[in-house]
């Protein structure tokens, strides 16, 4: 930190004057971006369609592109989960990052080796899960939210067989109560296994000493968030490979 550097009279003072070094750069970059933005705005017009008509629903209706990741999650989870719980967890999950990451290394410089897993997790969550879902939602979804290639004509009458079934049904359970109990066990087992697996993995990779320093609270928060994050690809896998619609079906919530 600045004050610390000053007090200790460090051998090299690598400070430069803000004016002109930083201000000059800011000015040039702002100028360049302003020119690019102006050219872009002259050549490409913002869309304006026909007047709003609440009685005519376009097919597909897409949310603004930056929310298409959420809309794409609706394919795999019900709205209360994909639209409310998961987004809230994303926000909370981002906010707790500084508190669950106790690795003192890699503060203020680029490095990969010293914080491999942190970076890989972030890239997985952000680039794979968030950005890729947006790309799918933007370019690969057409009428009826069906999959289309970007070059394919959008056929509003495309017929897609609805072959999805619920997991307990797929496995032969027909009775409601037995199915519900089975489903709860599956979901419970998912969390127990991922969290236990995560525990074992942390011990193996980071060691006992790290785990003690990390503490149970940090570990639990991280493990639950990791399990929830992995639940998206897990559900996607079940859907795409086994046509599973829901894992748990109750009159109140479906998962």
């Amino acid at each position, binding site marked *: 930190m600045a004050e610390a550097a000053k007090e200790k009279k460090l051998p090299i003072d690598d400070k430069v004057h803000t004016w002109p070094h930083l201000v000059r750069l800011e000015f040039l970059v702002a100028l360049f971006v302003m020119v690019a933005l102006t050219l872009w705005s002259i050549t490409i017009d913002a869309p304006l369609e026909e007047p709003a008509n609440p009685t005519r629903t376009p097919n597909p209706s897409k949310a603004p592109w930056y929310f298409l990741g959420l809309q794409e999650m609706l394919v795999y989870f019900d*709205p209360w989960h994909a639209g409310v719980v998961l987004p809230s967890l994303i926000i909370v999950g981002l906010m707790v990052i500084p508190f669950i990451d106790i690795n003192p290394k890699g503060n203020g410089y680029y490095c990969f080796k010293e914080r491999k897993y942190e970076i890989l997790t972030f890239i997985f969550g952000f680039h794979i899960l968030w950005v890729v879902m947006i790309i799918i939602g933007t370019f690969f979804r057409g009428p009826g939210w069906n999959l289309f290639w970007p070059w394919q004509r959008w056929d509003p009458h495309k017929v897609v067989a609805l072959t999805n079934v619920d997991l307990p049904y797929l496995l032969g359970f027909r009775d409601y109560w037995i199915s519900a109990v089975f489903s709860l066990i599956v979901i419970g087992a998912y969390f127990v296994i991922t969290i236990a697996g995560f525990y074992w993995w942390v011990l193996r990779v980071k060691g006992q000493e790290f785990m003690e320093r990390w503490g149970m609270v940090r570990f639990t928060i991280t493990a639950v968030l990791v399990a929830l994050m992995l639940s998206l690809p897990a559900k996607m896998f079940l859907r795409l490979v086994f046509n599973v619609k829901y894992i748990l079906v109750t009159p109140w919530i479906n998962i």
Partner: protein
Amino acid sequence: MDKNLFDKIKNDIVENQVWKAIFRHGYEDTPRNRVLMVTANVFLHLHPAKVRRHGVRMRFTWCMGGLTFFMYLVTVVTGIYLMFYYRPVAEYAYADMKYLEFDMPFGMLMRNMHRWSAHAMIVFVWLHMFRVFLTGSYKPPREFNWIVGVLLLVLTLLLSFTGYLLPWDQLSIWAVTVGSNMARATPLLGNEGPFADFVGANPIYDARAFLFGGGEIGPHTLLRFYILHCIFIPMVASILMAVHFWRIRRDGFSGPSL
């Protein structure tokens, strides 16, 4: 060019009564003056007077935080221009857009710039977050500024989302309908959400109705989103940005220890 010729021209411009009347005296390039340029200027004072060399490099910051802020300023300026001609009333909103596009001097250009800089702001803020993550700049003592940053990220998205409705065309109302339908599914608080019955949420009295100002999207929603878009969210975002910048100065800019 001949160095002497250049100096002579400069001298001719600077050394005369008119120039002196305006600028009094020249800018002498001394360390003291360099510091004063920053500390004596209310806007440049956002910066510290000196910064560490690595923090200036584009390689380190990608300039993304600064550009996010710059895009925000562009949307504020172009947005004020649009506000002069736009009325947030269902009967007029769409016609005003057309009017703006075809009749107002630079109307189309201002609208385009407003739209594209808003989109650019979203991309930049994502990249900024990615950069801050990669350099580990959220680590102590900057944890709190990361939290402020996450709030700013959410506000940036909400700013764009509320603005999306204002043209009042097919694209905007349906995109906002799809986006807001999630609120209807909020557990307990949304009429289609789990356990809504226990709370008594219904289509005209739930989380989405609160957002829309009524059971479905309509003129009341337009006014609501307009106020959120033009007053409420910018106000909160500006305050948080002030905190964000203040904390960067307080905590010092992140960097490898010397």
